């Protein structure tokens, strides 16, 4: 059985940002007086756990505890200094080479600039969401709305990433035309397939 304090904990974890006390009360069918008691119990539940409850007048949020600050700092530093890694390197490569070399210099955001998550998945054959997250966090790629489909995000290399690679444009990448053509062919093929056979699963 899930106790009310544990339910609050789970909800705050899943929300990952602040939740209003009003919203929490609704979700748990509790009035504000009852909720206040439950929140005290949640705070007690979390004591010594590495997480803590932050409470303002009308909001509640989950954070790492004060004592955890040094180890979390170590995590952040290690994340940033780590190698890009094989999966993220591949993801970055697909994004970098997806921009048609002929189109470089055309207004940004036009179709074919960079790649969407689906396109990266197609080329790599595996789910790439974790890699995209890492690359975004490391400031190597940035996302913007796909001009043809606003629900999709199209990722491109940041100017910092280009500078780090020592190039001014993706057309200066090694074997730019050849590798672009390889990736583009797979994407085109998948697009045609997706149009003919809607994904059976």
């Amino acid at each position, binding site marked *: 059985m899930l106790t009310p304090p544990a339910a609050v904990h789970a909800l705050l974890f899943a929300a990952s940002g602040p939740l209003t006390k009003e919203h929490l009360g609704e979700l748990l069918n509790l009035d504000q007086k009852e909720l206040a008691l439950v929140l005290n119990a949640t705070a007690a539940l979390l004591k010594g756990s590495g997480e803590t409850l932050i409470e303002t007048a009308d909001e509640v949020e989950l954070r790492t505890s004060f004592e955890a600050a040094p180890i979390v700092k170590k995590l952040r530093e290690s994340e940033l200094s780590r190698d*890009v890694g*094989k999966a993220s390197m591949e993801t*970055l*490569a697909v994004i970098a080479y997806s921009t048609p070399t002929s189109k470089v210099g055309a207004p940004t955001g036009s179709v074919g600039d960079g790649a969407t998550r689906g396109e990266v998945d197609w080329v790599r054959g595996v789910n790439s969401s974790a890699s995209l997250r890492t690359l975004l966090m490391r*400031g190597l790629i940035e996302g913007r709305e796909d001009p043809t489909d606003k629900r999709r995000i199209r990722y491109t290399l940041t100017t910092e990433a280009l500078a780090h*690679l020592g190039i001014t444009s993706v057309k200066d990448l090694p074997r730019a035309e050849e590798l672009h053509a390889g990736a583009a062919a797979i994407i085109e093929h998948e697009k045609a397939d997706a149009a003919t056979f809607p994904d059976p699963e």
Partner: protein
Amino acid sequence: MPYTIKTPEYEGPFEILLDLIEERKLLVNDLALSQITEDFIQHVRAQADFPIEETATFIQIAATLILIKSKSLIPDLTLSEDENADVEDLKRRLAAYEKVREASRELGRAWGHHPLFTIGERAIEPFFSPARDLSAGALAEALARVLAARKEVEELPEARVKPLVTIEEMMDALAKRVQSAMTLSFKEFSGSNKEKIEVIVSFLALLELVKQGAIEAEQFDQHGDIRLKHTASASVPHYG
């Protein structure tokens, strides 16, 4: 390019076998397998559009079923060591697959029922942090590796496809041979240097003709040839 083709979900041979056995409320054993042989062969024939490599598996299994069935029809028939191994293998794999199907159903029941949710997406504050391993050359290498891996996957299945005999072709050939010569030996018919699968397909087709009453099969001693005879009562069926 099998890697990109969206294959329709057709049933595999084990799945069909288990379905047929379960329909009859039987347990997986020799008796059950000999009872579903015809239905299984019907299925192989009805599915002309299997990818060729799948058809091979289907025909191989059909052939093993025929071995099991013919053993029950012709008590004198002694299966060779290889044939016995095929029969045992099929039964073992079927038993394992039965477990897998159960496992799959268990997973299906649990799937998405009580998902464990992730922490919500938090706003990411990007902090530019490339690493030593990131270079233009490494990028090119990474993409080239991905493209090469895909190419390998796409080329792989073609190498495995073997030219195959269909049941129909073999039936046809068998019928013609039987018509032209009143008797002939099974060994002669199946040839001596053909691939095993072809021998089995011949055997399968032969037994089917026997069952239809089109020919009579006699085996004079345990290890001898099976002699085929065109029966007077029935004309040889035509296929194709």
